[in-house]
């Protein structure tokens, strides 16, 4: 027996040739034993792209990506198109993506009376069903959220999404630590963004909504949002300026937030229809303080905490002002709750009546 083995190559271009002296030639051709598209299922947003790969499993155990060598096609080019594995979403809907490579050698082993040449067989293919998802993420018209303790965030710090197909699930995230999301139960899917960003620390952040359709993949959309300060006190220094002689008078000056989109805000900037509620954290002295003020201003305005008398009265008290400022921007009514503490106020004789 004159039997010998020639090891010529490996994998797709490798042929392991056996020669039989009794007239049989046995030939084993290395090549693919399986092939498939990754990802399956796939998902891509309308106008978005998603790169698929075409994986070939060779008999030798190696895997290669044949995306560049394969031909690609879409079952519905009005939904999705594909080129070299790059799927581009055209419109919401489902489509089947096909890949094939007729020239890719298959693994085969055969004995014959004549000498066989490799490859004995070739041609691989794969397909993957997927969805083009319409995911629209929208904030309020100015993609703004507002800092502060806001009792009325729902109308302001809102983000909404629309999807096609429906039936999936959402997750939300922010690149700003401390941001949380509360689902909006009506008019959704939507969320109210709560931020721990403190007054004076405003700026941009990116909020990302990810939509997952079970078994059909997921897409994400990011929204650039600016955190803005609605109103802030520019001065809250107490001043003992009781003309009446005894007591304490504080004057707070507020400057409403100047909206950078002011040109688009109707009917104008600033505060209007303002209602201010302030209250004592401690027992109101004498019940003489009226909690409903009327801070109405279109620009800067002052707020007064006065406890001044022509007669001496010694009272020690701690006061916290909860000032709810309401403004009407063109698209929404905004409230901001500012809290200031004025502790250790002592109403004592600060000089005789003039």
């Amino acid at each position, binding site marked *: 027996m004159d039997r010998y083995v020639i090891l010529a190559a490996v994998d797709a271009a490798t042929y392991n040739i056996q020669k039989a002296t009794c007239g049989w030639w046995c030939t084993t051709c290395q090549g693919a034993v399986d092939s498939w598209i990754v990802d399956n299922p796939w998902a891509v947003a309308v106008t978005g792209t998603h790169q698929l790969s075409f994986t070939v499993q060779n008999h030798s155990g190696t895997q290669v990506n044949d995306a560049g060598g394969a031909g690609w096609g879409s079952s519905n080019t009005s939904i999705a198109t594909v080129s070299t594995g790059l799927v581009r979403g055209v419109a919401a809907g489902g489509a089947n993506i096909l890949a094939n490579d007729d020239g890719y050698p298959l693994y085969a082993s055969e004995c014959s009376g004549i000498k066989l040449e490799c490859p004995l067989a070739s041609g691989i293919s794969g397909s993957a069903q997927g969805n083009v998802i319409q995911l629209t993420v929208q904030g309020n*018209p100015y993609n703004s959220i507002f800092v502060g303790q806001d009792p009325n965030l729902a109308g302001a710090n809102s983000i909404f999404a629309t999807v096609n197909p429906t039936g999936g699930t959402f997750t939300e995230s922010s690149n700003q630590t401390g941001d949380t999301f509360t689902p909006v139960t009506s008019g959704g899917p939507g969320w109210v963004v709560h931020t721990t960003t403190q007054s004076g620390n405003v700026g941009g952040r990116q909020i990302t909504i990810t939509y997952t359709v079970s078994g059909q993949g997921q897409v994400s959309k990011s929204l650039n949002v600016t955190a803005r300060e609605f109103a802030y006190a520019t001065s809250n220094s107490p001043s003992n300026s*009781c*003309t*009446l*002689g005894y*007591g304490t*008078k504080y*004057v707070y000056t507020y400057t409403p937030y100047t909206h950078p989109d*002011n*040109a*688009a*805000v*109707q*009917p*104008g*900037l600033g505060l209007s229809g303002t209602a*201010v*509620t*302030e*209250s*004592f954290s401690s027992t109101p*002295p*004498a*019940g*003489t*303080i*009226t*909690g*409903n*003020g*009327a*801070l*109405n*201003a*279109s*620009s*800067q*305005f*002052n*707020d*007064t*905490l*006065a*406890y*001044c*008398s*022509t*007669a001496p*009265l010694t009272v020690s008290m701690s*006061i916290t*002002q909860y*000032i709810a400022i309401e403004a009407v921007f*063109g*698209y929404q009514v905004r409230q901001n709750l500012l809290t200031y503490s004025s502790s250790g106020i002592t109403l004592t004789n600060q000089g005789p*009546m*003039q």
Partner: protein
Amino acid sequence: MSCLQQVFQCGALLLTVTLGMPSLRPSMQQIGLEVQSQNALLETTVPEFELHDGTVLDGLWKLARGPVEFGFGFEKVLKTNLSDPEIPDPRFNLHIRDKPLREVLDALCDADPRYMWSNDGATVNFYPRAIVNDSSYLLNRRFQKFDLKGATEVQDGLLAIARQLSPPTVEQIAQAQLGGDDPYPPEPWTLILENVTVRQVVNRLAAHGGPRGIWIFGGSKDFRAFGFFNTRPSPWLEKPKESEPRNP
């Protein structure tokens, strides 16, 4: 019985001047116009007024904000001592449609019969019935002449009241206020009034802070205090818009 008690102070001489401006004395024709104007205010129809579980002061606040806007002075029923517990105010519901302001005010003080109302020019005054004939009650006390010079804040006016009321005792007056602002324009203001009550003076002090000036008087008999508010921005605080808005 209507709780209205209109106060037309046609006989009162009223002079308001801004420092550096010539004195102005209203003619009888001007006074007639003022009476006509205040009557027009009271006869103005309020399209709808609704108060839910509110006090008479809550109702006044709401009513004064419009659509028929007006300024008012409200005198709470005073406690005896500062340390006494608060006097509870009756809470009630009102729903009135297409009635003149006069009738809405009547309905408010009918709902809390401790009070009655009157008007002094464009200001509506609410005060306890119990003090109407009490000449020693602070707001009922009368000046033969009240003279205020160079006022730049409302406390200047209150101080002038305390100083110019007749002896024997110096009246205690306070400004106790949380919320609102000191609404006076920066220009010094001079006011001379003759034969007027403290209530009328305070009405003028509030009105100088804006056309919809509001004052509230409360506290206790041993510590009485005023608060001054506005339902509208003071005109002199308005700033011109820097840019014209456009549609979004």
